[in-house]
Structures are given as C-alpha cells and as structure tokens.
C-alpha cells in the first residue's frame, strides 16, 4: 500500500475506533438564553384576622407582558430550563421573601381560596400584580386575610336517599331598596359545589353576609333535570328562601335539603324535511331553546338538542314546559346545505310529536383571505389556524333580531380559501377567531372589490364567491404610561388599556393590563389611527366600586413603529365625554 493511502487508512481506523464525543452543550433550538439579571426580590407580610400568619404558602408566577407572542422557553446559565413559578413560606412573624428573581411582571398569591381579603365587604383573595425593574426589591406586598365561612349539608330525595353529584348553589341575599330581599350571584366566588356519594356538599371561602342555598332545577350534569329548584329550608320560591347569616371563619353545618318534587320533563319528536320536495334531511342537527313571553315569571330554563336520522326523524328529551324555538345546523366543523326558519312548538303537559321543520337549501358564501403587505409562507400558514364564524339574519323580520336563521363555523383552508354552505338568505355577518394569536388582525372584508359596511346581503340560494377577508400582520407597538393627576395609584387596582383601530368596520381592538407603576404595552398592532381607552375601578361617593372609563386619547401608529404615549387621568373621577 502506498504511504499516503496507508496514512489515510490509519486515520480512518482511528476515527472509527474513537467514538466522536457528543458536541458539548449545543444550545437546543427551542430554548432562548436567559440573560436577565437575577437581582430582584419581593417581600411582604401575611396576616389572618390581623395576626401574623406563619407557614403560609405564597406563590409567584412570572407573567408575560407580551401576551401575543408565545412565551419563550428560557435556558438559564447552568443549562436548566427557567421555572416561571416560585414558592415561599411565611416565617413566625408572617413575613415572606423571595429573592434572585429576574425583572418582569409577577402575579403573587397567598394562602388559598379558603381565605378572603380583609376589606369592608371582603373581596375574594385575589392575587396581586408586581412589576419589577432590574435590581428592584419590592417590599410590603402584604396580604391581610380573613378565613372565609363554610356552609355544609346534605341533599336527599323524597325517599331520604342521597342525591349524588348534584350541584348546590350559593346566592347572596340582598335587601333591595324596596325592602324586598332578592338573590344575587356573587362574582368570582365558588358559588356552586357538587354533592358527593353521601349527598354531602361543602362550600368554603364565603365572605361574611347572608346567603341562600338551593339545589335542583337546571343542574347541568348528565340530564340532572329531575328535581324542581328548591331553596333552603324547603321552598320553590326564592323570595321565601331563608337567609343564612355567615360570619368570617364560621362553619355552618346541617343546611340540608330534601328534593321532593320530581320534575317532569317531556320529549319532543319530529322530522326535518326539505320544504320543496318533502324529502327527509338526514343527519342535520337540531337545537331548540326555550323562549319566554314578555313579563313572564317563568324562570325555568329549557334546551334540547338532537340529530336527525336517515329518515330525518329526531327526538329531543329532558324538556321543561314552555315554548321552544328550533333551528337546524351542521355539527361542529361539519357542513350542511340546509337552513330552516325558526320553528316553534309548545310543551304543555305531555310529550310533543309531529314537529315538522321545513328546511331549504341555503346559499353559499365563499372567497379568499389574504394578508395585506405580507407574502412570507410562515405568516400565510397562520391563516389556516383561523376560524370563521358567520350568521345570517333575515332581512325582513327586524323584531326577531335575536333569532338568526343560520349559524356557521368553518376554517380557512391552507390555500387561503373558505366556504360556507347552507346559508339562509338575509344579512350575513362574518367574524373571525384567531385562537389567541393576535399577530393577525382582520381589518377589512370586501365583496366584489369594495369594502362591506356591516354584512353581506344574500338572496335565497345565491352563491356569492367574491368575498375577501383582508388581514394585516401587525408589528406596531404602543408603550405608554398612565399618570394619575390626583392621588397616586395603589397596587391592586386593576386598570386595563384598550386600543381600538379607527376607520374599520371589523372591530379591531387590543387590550392589556396596566401594571402597578402605570405602564402598559400593546403590540402586534397594524398601522393606523387608534383610540386608546383607560378603564379602571372607581370608588363612587356611596362607597360602591365600579369599573369605568377613566381616559380616552387618540394616537397614530405607523407600520412597524413603536410609539410612546402618556395618558393623564384622575383616579377619582371617570372620564366625561365632551358634548
């Protein structure tokens, strides 16, 4: 063998003999390097009933400020993946501290839903938002808590058997200005719990006040419509419901209910046929909703749905007494050629049969969706993640504005086209749902080359093919600061900023939280004129707190630019429109 080739073969053998060492620490493609400094901290105190609370868990979540883009998965210097949740525990004095945090926005929660904040009308134990700049140490992120009240009891039927997996509802009893008590759902509370196999339920974290307990009625679980709504102690009338006073930290037991009256439900059966030919319309779905007369005292809900078989026959079960209005539609992500005018029937004291729903062949609305000013493949593939929702309202029947004749949902195909079938004649309105991806905004809908105002007019059986959905890939950013002109802003107030694109008919708007320093950012904005609106909770003179408009301001965002803005407002006085 010639010397060179021997050398080569030697080298080759050596290479074969030594396994090639794994490439040391190549950065994994899904991770971004976390170069944020870890010099921030959050600390505070937790008290329960005014006393320092030891051993309480405090949890922290790094909250994305940029809510439109996917959260980056960060890799820290030691090669591990950044955890974005943290925990700390309070010491004997109720103090907690967490250090080595990166700058950013955090949501801080103490204890659990068994506790409430210790304010005059105790609010839910809501987490606090803390926005840290580099090197910032925030102290006094305190939680003054009280233990919520508990109501527990057992639900049985007329034979004394436990009623299992049944929802028990809690409602606040309010005495109105007329001296009458009425029930109100308290927002954000755990206001319903399910009974277990013994029929026992337990509702906790209840703010001090007067409450009514009820079960039966619409129960939402597996056709659990069997019992009439009953209020503690034993009445179907909500005005007769006994007000149960609950004090903080108090456990009230024995709030039992006997659901005696078995509620009768009924069946409705019928057929869906083509109105011209009388031929059955197989497989189409039918939904019937109870409708109420003006001033009716009937509070019982009613809803039934079913699917037509091959002969067009359908059957709905579990219906309460009342008048129902039915519509037909395709199943989720399926298509149908038919629509029907709302058909009504009445359930009195017996099953109903012979319902005839006459369906007609609908028109079609189709077209393309395009992204203005962008041609790259990556952006185009986002189109196929967008859902189109459409509904058609009959032109003539103005008073039935709440009863559209056909509902549709479909997706945009990979080639950008879309097709809606079985559309009822009338005014067709289109909406899109981008599934949380705000990088694309629907800025215009065109038909035949001209923008439409509100809706597309469709004649009976017409096939419209020249619709264009124009999207814009927004890259503009608004960074702003709200400035309180009277008192300083305090942590815990929830302000939101909204930006509405002007001059478009499709309702393009963005919103985001304002941090406790008054700063906000809105991104993925297509170019245009925007109206900014600051909303926040205002304390009214009578002590009530309500979410109101605090400021409005116009701003222009050129394509791809970042604009800054300062918004002055008075935290004590809502915005007054100029007349």
């Amino acid at each position, binding site marked *: 063998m010639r010397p060179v080739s021997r050398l080569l073969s030697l080298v080759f053998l050596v290479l074969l003999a030594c396994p090639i060492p794994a490439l040391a620490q*190549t950065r*994994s*493609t*899904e*991770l971004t390097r976390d170069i944020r400094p870890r010099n921030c901290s959050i600390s505070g105190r937790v008290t329960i009933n005014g006393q320092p609370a030891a*051993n*309480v*868990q405090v*949890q922290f*979540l790094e909250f994305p400020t940029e809510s439109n*883009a*996917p*959260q980056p*998965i960060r890799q820290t210097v030691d*090669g*591990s*993946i950044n*955890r*974005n*949740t943290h*925990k700390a*525990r309070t010491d004997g004095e109720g103090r907690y501290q967490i250090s080595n945090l990166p700058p950013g926005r955090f*949501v801080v*929660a103490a204890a*659990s*839903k068994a506790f409430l904040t210790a304010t005059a009308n105790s609010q839910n134990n809501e*987490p606090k938002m803390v926005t840290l700049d580099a090197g910032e140490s925030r102290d006094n992120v305190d939680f003054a808590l009280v233990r*919520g009240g*508990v109501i527990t009891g057992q639900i049985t039927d007329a034979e004394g058997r436990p*009623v*299992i*997996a*049944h929802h028990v509802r809690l409602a606040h009893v309010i005495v109105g200005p007329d001296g009458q008590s009425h029930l109100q759902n308290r927002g954000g509370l755990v206001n319903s719990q399910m009974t*277990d*196999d013994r029929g026992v339920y*337990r509702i*906790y*974290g209840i703010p001090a006040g007067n409450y009514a307990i009820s079960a039966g009625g619409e129960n939402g679980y*597996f*056709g659990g419509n*069997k019992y009439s709504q009953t209020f503690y102690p034993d009445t179907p009338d909500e005005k007769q419901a006994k007000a149960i006073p609950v004090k903080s930290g108090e456990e009230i037991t024995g709030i039992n209910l006997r659901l005696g009256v078995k509620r009768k439900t009924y069946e409705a059966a019928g057929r869906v046929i083509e109105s011209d030919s009388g031929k059955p319309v197989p*497989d189409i779905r039918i939904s019937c909703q109870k409708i109420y007369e003006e001033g009716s005292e009937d509070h019982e809900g009613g809803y039934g749905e*079913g*699917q037509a*078989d091959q*002969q067009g*026959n359908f*059957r709905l*079960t*579990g219906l309460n007494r009342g008048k129902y209005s039915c519509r037909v539609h395709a199943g989720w*992500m*399926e298509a149908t050629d038919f629509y029907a005018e709302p058909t009504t029937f009445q359930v009195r004291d017996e099953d109903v049969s012979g319902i005839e729903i006459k369906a007609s062949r609908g028109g079609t609305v189709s077209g393309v969706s395009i992204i203005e000013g962008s041609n790259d493949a990556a952006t185009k*593939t986002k189109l*196929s*993640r967008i*859902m189109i929702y459409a509904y058609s309202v009959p032109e003539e029947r103005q008073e039935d504005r709440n009863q559209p004749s056909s509902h549709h949902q479909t*997706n945009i*195909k*990979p080639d950008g086209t879309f097709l809606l079938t079985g559309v009822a004649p009338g005014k067709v309105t289109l909406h899109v749902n981008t*599934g949380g991806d705000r990088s694309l905004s629907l800025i215009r809908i065109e038909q035949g080359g001209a923008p439409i105002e509100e809706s597309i007019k469709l004649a009976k059986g017409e096939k419209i093919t020249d619709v264009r959905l124009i999207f814009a890939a927004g890259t503009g950013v608004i960074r702003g600061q709200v400035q309180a002109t009277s008192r300083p802003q305090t942590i815990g107030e929830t302000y939101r900023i909204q930006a509405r694109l002007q001059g478009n008919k499709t309702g393009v708007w963005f919103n985001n939280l304002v941090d406790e320093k008054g700063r906000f950012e809105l991104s993925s904005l297509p170019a245009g004129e925007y109206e900014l609106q600051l909303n926040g909770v205002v304390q009214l003179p009578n002590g009530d707190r309500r979410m109101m408009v605090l400021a409005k301001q116009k701003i222009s965002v050129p394509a791809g630019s970042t604009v800054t803005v300062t918004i002055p407002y008075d935290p004590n006085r809502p915005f007054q429109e100029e007349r």
Partner: protein
Amino acid sequence: MKAFITVFSLLLLGGIALAQAKPETTISGKVLLDDGQPASGAHLEINSVGLRQNRRSESVECDETGGFKLTGLAPGSYSIEVAAPGYVTDEATARRVYRPGETVTIHLVKGGVVTGKITDSAGEPLVNAKVKLQRLRDLNGNRVRNGDTSFLGDDFHTDDRGIYRAFGLLPGVYVVGVDGETGERWLGSENEAPTYYPSTTRDAAMELTVRPGDEHSSIDIRFRGDAGRAISGTVTGTFESSQPFNRPGLTLLNAATKEPVASSSPNQNNAFVLFGIPDGEYELFARQIGRREENSAGSLPLRVSVKGADVTGLSLRLMPYASISGRVVIESAKPGEAKCDPQAKLSVEEILLRHKSELRNPRTLNALLGDIDEAIRPTAPDEKGEFTLRQLEPDAYRIETDLPGENWFVRSMTLPAVGAAKNKTDAARSPITLKAGEKLTGLEITLAEGAASLSGRVTPKPGGNLPSRLRVHLIPAETTASDDVLRYRETVIEKNGSFEFKHLAPGKYLMLARSSSDTESNSQRPAAFDSTERTKLRKEAEAANQQLELLPCQHVKDHVLRF
C-alpha cells in the same frame, strides 16, 4: 287455470317480498343496580362505534323499571354508557358493542370511594389541590386504558380542610397522587414532582384495591414538594392543513408502567416544555389527529431518561400514519343453497374491523401499549361496504372482524396480486406490512352466509382436574385447508370449563384442548398465525382425534370435549 297460477305466484312472490324484514332500528333493555333493583332514572348515552363521519350520539333515561328504548337507529354498531351517580358499569358490559334489534341488560356496580387529607410539606392543609386517582389494572389484573377511573373523570379536589373524597370509582387497582396543583389555573405548570400515597415517590407508591362499594378512608398524603425536572424540545413535521385549534399533543408515559405522567402542546414556535417530572425512565410521543382523523400523524416514541437534570433539545418528528382501505364483499349465495334465515339481512355497517399489530416494530406506540386491547378503536364500513383503517404505525398487521348476528363468516381476506403473481395475496395467512405513511388499498374481505356455531364444555379425564388455564382449538380437518388461517380458531375456556365459537365456516374440524401458561393474556396472538405452530396443532389434534363436522347454519350446543 294458467291465469290463476300466475296470480297465485304473483301473490306468493309479493308475500315473500313482504316477509323480508326491514332493518331493525331499536335497541332496548334494562339497567339494573348491583342488588338487582332497577336503576330507574339512570341516564344512558349511546354512541355509534367505528364511524369517522356522521357519528351519532343519543341519550335516553331509564323508566321506573330501569327499562329504556332507543329508536330510529341507523344500521351500525353502538356502545352504551350509563351514568347513574355513584354507580359504574362493570367492565365486561362497558366494552360491549350492540346492534339494532338487540335487547340488552346492563348491570351497574357501586362505585368505590377513596378519601383522605392532603397536607403540604409544613403540615398545613393543601386547599383545592387536585388529587389524581390513577387506575392501573382492573380486578382481573388486566391493564386498562387511561382515563377510565370514575364516571366523573379523575377531577377530585381537596376542600378548605385539605380533605378530598373521590367517589364513583371503577373497580380496580389504583395509586393516588397529588401534584401540588391547587386549581388556580393562572398559576401555570407545577414544577414539583407529584407525591403518591403514602407520601412517597411513584416507585414506592402503595397500590389500593377498590372493589365495588369499597370505601378506603385515611388515604392521607403529605405533599413532599420534591423538585421536578423539566423536559423540552420541538415537534417537527406538523402540518397546517385544516388544523385550526388542533395543535399536536405530547404525552409523557412512565416507561415501566405506561402511566401518563405529563402532557402538553407545543407553542406557536413548535417548542414544548414539560415541568414537574421526577427522575426516571419515560417514553415521549406526539400526535396530531386531523379532523375526522384523516391526515393524522404521529411520532415514534422517544425514550427519555431523567437523572438529576433537565433534558433539553429533544426532537419529535410527526410522520403521517399509514392506512388500509378496502371493501367488504358479500358472497352471493349459490343457487339452491338454503339461506340460514331468509328474514335476516346483513347490514354491512354493523361489521366492525380492528387492526392487530404483530408488534414487530419495537419503536411504536403499539409495542409500548400493546396489551391494552381497548386502545385500538374499531372501524365500521359504510353502506357500500367500504372502509379505511387509519392511524396505523409502520408495522405488520392482522385484521380482526366482529360480525353481527350468527349467520355470517369470513370466507377470505385478500389483497391485489403482487407483481407477476396471478393470484391475489392471502391477507389472512401472512400479516399486512405497512411502511410509514403508506396508504394501502384493495383489501377485500369476503363474507359468506351459512356460518355455524359451536359451544360446549371441556371435561377432565375421569378422576382428574382441569388445569387453571385451558385453551380450546379448532383446526380444519381437510388437508386442503391446512393453510387457511381463517379456519383456525382458539379461545380460552371460562371458569366453568365452557367455551363458545361463532361465525365458523362450515366443514370438518379437529378439536384440541391444550393447557396454556398463566402468563398468557386473554388476547394473545393466535398460534395458527405461524405455519410451524399450525403443523404442531394439527399433529396434536390428530393424535387427540376429536373430530366434528359442522353443516351450514348449524348451531351446536353442549358439545363435550375431553381434555
């Protein structure tokens, strides 16, 4: 006279036409509680099985006698789910498939209860913590499909005292775990590894046997808050067509027990991360199921070892699944051949087909989860008899059939002739091999009428006992049929020694009772799939010399087979 005969024959023909029954459209029956009492008011849901499009779902309530009636059903196969709070369907009933015209009795058993207190590492009650009851096996020791825990799912949370009560549990063997997630959705993924009863890691978790009506109390767990590791990577090959709101899903399984440990979806950059993973061995896979299951794709399972550090840079590649398409053909009756039941008409939509992997490819999900029979979803042909078996990984497959009624049997399964061969390929004799993403067409399953059936008992030798596990084999006696795999049948005897075979091709059979080892599962691969095993079976059967002839449409009961 002639006119009279003509009229008479016309009437006769007309009469016969009338006698041919319309297809059945009703399934009715009764639901009973474990004490035999009617489950009045129980809620039934019937779902069509094996259909990709036009899936039907109907619900009905039982009356005071526990009776129900579902009408207007199109020809097909249906499964029935019963919800009676606190009760669950017993396993055998839950898996059954029903066809219109059948009368059904469903037995419910009392769900089990597991209750206890969860505290955190400082001994304080953990409020609103999610307690996960993981069902490992049923009471017969068979591994079960994930998700079958309770009629309520596995969503049990602790209250303000840290107490949870899981009820309505399906009988079986469980481990109980808490992962520290306290139901505050906004808090995001939990970083800590789960703690299992009795306050340990998964390998030391104590198994709980829950029988119908059992109540296990004081199943307390002190949540350890052990640091979990994170696993991250990317999923490639995702396809965008028609996939709104349909991101691929990733699942991480415990490599030893196959329990799901974590799941997630990649973000818009196709990157994923899973948190809270304890040290151990895992299998990770991704799947994207298209709408109506066309265009579905999956990755091969990836073995992941977590040992004291996060694992990053994993890459899962989605590859399109393979499929097998074909047609069910009904052999026309030969003239003069009597039909078993002139009234019965086969609705081809009532047939169910299942693919069974030969598990030749160890790097498939099938190989990982193989012995969980119910994981394979069946397919029903449409009214033209056309079918497509989907979501198949690259492997070799056999096709199982589930036929309605009693009168039909599978005559042959063929694929189009390959290359220069003149005859079609026998798709029953050798398995069907599929490459990744291959869309095989032309499978023809031919059914013929005149099936026989055979049921009976195995009796031991005088003075002897039957072994604990015994298999009964049917072997075609005709030497010409020695390679007709469809004529070979086997089944495990019941506890009382009884056995049953249906949908048998008429002909001569040799019968053999053979003891099988305890380690073989009920759904093991038939011996007849191998030609050497077939020869062995024949030899043993010839020696045992128990022969039987089955005529078309003959139903033999109480046949005695000597062991």
